[in-house]
């Protein structure tokens, strides 16, 4: 066997060995998240995608919304718009990467999108009547600042 080929085979073998050593402590495990998973942290429970159809453009007032859903999570200057936000775990099976190292230590990280954030944005006219309703939702993990930056930008209905 030519020396160059032997050297190349040796390098590949070494690289393979390093790769195997690096990966041997990593395991991807499925993790069940209960169907009754609740919202996370300080998120409200009482607003969801089903809430949007209950809000009627030209009929529902700002007071109606306050009495139905409570205070908003965000409000614009002069209460021109309200936002209601939720942040919840997604029910079902999700994958997690578990890393076991030497000396015995362990860690893990979620793989994929375990959570969902949703935001309902309602714009009002000068009389305090609903002028537009928008709903935005996204699956994510960690979920910091994943929705559009403009609070009222989603009011499109």
């Amino acid at each position: 066997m030519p020396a160059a080929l032997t050297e190349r085979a040796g390098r590949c073998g070494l690289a393979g060995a390093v790769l195997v050593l690096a990966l041997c402590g990593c395991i991807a495990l499925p993790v069940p998240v209960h169907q009754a998973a609740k919202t996370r942290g300080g998120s409200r429970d009482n607003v969801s995608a089903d809430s949007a159809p209950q809000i009627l453009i030209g009929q529902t007032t700002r007071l109606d919304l306050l009495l139905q859903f409570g205070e908003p999570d965000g409000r614009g200057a002069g209460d021109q718009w309200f936002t209601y936000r939720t942040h919840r775990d997604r029910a079902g099976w999700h994958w997690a990467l578990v890393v076991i190292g030497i000396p015995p230590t362990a860690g893990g990280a979620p793989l994929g999108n375990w959570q969902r954030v949703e935001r309902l944005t309602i714009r009002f006219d000068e009389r305090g009547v609903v002028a537009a309703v928008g709903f935005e939702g996204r699956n994510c993990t960690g979920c910091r600042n994943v929705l559009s930056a403009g609070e009222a930008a989603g009011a499109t209905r």
Partner: protein
Amino acid sequence: MLGAACLAGCAATPRGDPHLLDFLDGAGVTRAAAIARLGPAYATYENGRVVAYLIDSGPLGPYVAPRRGDWRGVDRDLILVFDANDMLAQHRLIPIRDASRTH
């Protein structure tokens, strides 16, 4: 010694009042009476006509929860609507979060 006794007493005081919100169902509730009973409102809307309080459930009943940046430690939102004469015209206690969950 006295301080320790006071602290022990505070720590043992259960929160809540089962009759905290009973007055809302009475006739002729004024804005002043509401503030006297519940304290300053958490937030106001509609030029002050609508006021809001955060309510949580303690071992003895509901209590007005402190203001925070989110809904942690709150399970209901109390909305009071006053008329032009500062008389209570409407009120509603809205469930915001499942009361059984941990804070």
